[in-house]
């Protein structure tokens, strides 16, 4: 077992190209994780995708002008990125075309231009597929130096301009009032975005790089509501996804971009399902538990009222009608409550036990005091108070109920004239 893990994780590290790929993956994780957080919060995902695609012609033109070296790649990509972001807002501002359409037209146009140029290119050989789909195992030393410089630059920018990025993202009007130019910050961010795309070009490729910009931040967003934590988590998910993706790419010969992105998506899915606050699994169980508790309380209250009025109806039919639930649900709920020792009996004829009666008394007391309180304070009219009280009685604490009773001067009857039970 240990041997397998060793073979999977450590053995590849003896190769230099794997070491380079590992560092490159970490750089992608950091730069995309940081910039992506702001891209997501500012709802610029589409622009991010557009910039990534339009980097292609920039890269090719860079190569045509000054040959295949990292600096021409960097300059070409950056120019293309910034130009694209300017063009998108120019078209939007000067016609009735909306932003999403403007983005669609410009980035597909730029991308098509890139493909056209590549197919015509004779003097420099460009491996198109590595730019499109990423080839993390083919990262060169100079690629690595460039992405490291970019990552450090992005990291420093995000730290230095934390205030400006925060206020322009959350409240652009406030930024304007305190003299921060929102468009300056926007284009600065677009520059950083283009740079992070360059950093991720080799390992993830232009088509999927947007995933590294939005999936790790979105995952982080589900897990925290603090910006600083979100930035850190987003970087962590970015790094972990890239590294895991890299290993899969090495061992199973997957396209590296695809395996990195799929790993990131798996993390997102996990957060979506299991996040302690936002996860849908958690929400489902919380809802189910609440429904069960509410149903128990409603049934106890019904039995209490029935005893109070000494009526002899069919409990199952009446409850089923009152709560608009099918009879079999009521029956199984009754069995469940019986097993907790709150009621005893069978079929249609259930009676409260001593514990059950105490609990029901508490509920009725809470319900009637709350109703009285709402009427006394003129908070809602008579028609609605019953419904309102039904909602709240399940959540009111003992302390609050006593406080309400105190404030009302220990009333004997509720607005409908029913007696309010005393605290036991």
């Amino acid at each position, binding site marked *: 077992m240990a041997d397998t893990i060793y073979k999977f994780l450590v053995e590849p590290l003896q190769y230099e190209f794997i070491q380079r790929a590992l560092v490159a993956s970490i750089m992608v994780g950091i730069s995309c994780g940081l910039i992506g957080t702001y891209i997501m*919060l500012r709802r610029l995902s589409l622009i991010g995708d557009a910039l990534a695609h339009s980097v292609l012609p920039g890269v090719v033109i860079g190569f045509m002008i000054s040959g295949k070296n990292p600096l021409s790649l960097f300059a070409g990509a950056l120019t293309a990125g910034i130009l694209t972001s300017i063009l998108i807002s120019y078209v939007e501002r000067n016609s009735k075309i909306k932003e999403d359409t403007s983005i669609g037209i410009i980035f597909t146009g730029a991308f098509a231009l890139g493909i056209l140029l590549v197919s015509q290119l004779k003097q420099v050989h460009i491996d198109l597929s590595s730019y499109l789909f990423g080839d993390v195992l083919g990262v060169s030393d100079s690629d690595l130096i460039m992405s490291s410089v970019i990552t450090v630059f992005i990291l420093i920018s995000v730290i*230095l*301009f934390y*205030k400006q990025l*925060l*206020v322009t*993202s*959350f*409240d652009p*009007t*406030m930024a*304007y*009032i*305190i*003299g*921060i130019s929102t468009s300056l910050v926007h284009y600065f961010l677009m520059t950083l975005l283009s740079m992070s795309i360059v950093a991720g070009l080799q390992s993830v490729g232009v088509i999927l790089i947007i995933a590294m910009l939005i999936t790790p931040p979105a995952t982080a*967003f589900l897990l*925290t*509501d*603090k*910006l600083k*934590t*979100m930035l850190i988590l987003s970087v962590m998910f970015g790094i972990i996804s890239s590294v895991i993706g890299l290993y899969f790419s090495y061992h199973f010969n997957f396209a590296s971009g695809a395996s990195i992105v799929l790993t990131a998506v798996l993390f997102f899915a996990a957060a979506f399902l299991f996040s302690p606050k936002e996860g849908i699994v958690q929400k489902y169980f919380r809802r189910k538990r609440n429904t069960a508790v509410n149903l128990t309380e409603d049934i106890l209250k019904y039995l209490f009222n029935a005893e109070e009025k000494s009526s002899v109806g069919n409990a199952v039919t009446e409850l089923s009608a009152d709560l608009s639930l099918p009879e079999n649900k009521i029956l199984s709920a009754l069995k469940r409550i019986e097993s907790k020792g709150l009621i005893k009996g069978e079929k249609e004829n259930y009676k409260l036990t001593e514990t059950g009666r105490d609990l029901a008394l508490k509920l009725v007391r809470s319900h009637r005091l709350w109703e009285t309180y709402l009427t006394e304070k003129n908070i809602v009219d008579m028609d609605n108070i019953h419904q309102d009280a039904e909602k709240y009685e399940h959540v009111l604490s003992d302390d609050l109920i006593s406080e309400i009773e105190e404030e009302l001067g220990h009333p004997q009857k509720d607005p409908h004239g029913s007696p309010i039970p005393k605290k036991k």
Partner: protein
Amino acid sequence: MTVISVKNLTISYNKKPAIKGINLEVGEGSIIGILGPNGAGKSTLIKGILGLLPSETGEIRIFEKPVKEVLKRIAYIPQKEQFDWDFPINVSEVVMMGRYPYISLFGRPDENDHLIVKEVLEKVEMADNQFTQIRNLSGGQQQRIFLARALAQESDIYLLDEPFVGVDAKTEKAIFELIKELKEKNKTILIVHHDLSKVKEYFDKVILINQTLVAFGDTDIAFTSELINKAYGGRLTILQKAEQLFKN
């Protein structure tokens, strides 16, 4: 001293004027209500004063200077819909933004800034919630943190767009007490307001607007049923009229 001077201000959306030829002179130390029916251009006026919207004609001067030069002396509380309440930010971080004008380009908030944030949060009774994410606040609390931010900014002019919407009566009263305190410190406060019932109690002056300026002056003089009717174009319902009579 004239604090805000608006001359012949016209602002249009898609070539349709939202406000037309507005003239105003506002002095210091007063609470001014901006009133008018829906779509009358109340928010547009405030945004126009701030220079947030391009004006077709008109000149705005604040403290006898162009707006851009004195923006930092203005605190603005926009309508609540403007914000993304899911944004990962907590109460004290929002309020700290009010201190940003006093912090250098790369600077961080210092002890004094933290102290001021703490003070204003206590003032609006939100000290216990300083680390709460803003989605988890009630409507009244959400409004109070933006008031706290405005207070932290220590401005001379306060522009509030519908600060009492979605706010319970108790909070409304508390907010208004704080606004009165500002007035006593000689600040100028402009409030976009839609509830006609509290006008006499709240405002020293009113601006009645329905695209054009209908009336501007001391509440006793400008807030008459005749002028209100003119501003609301007879759209005041019987119920509102009855309420008016009852309250006055």
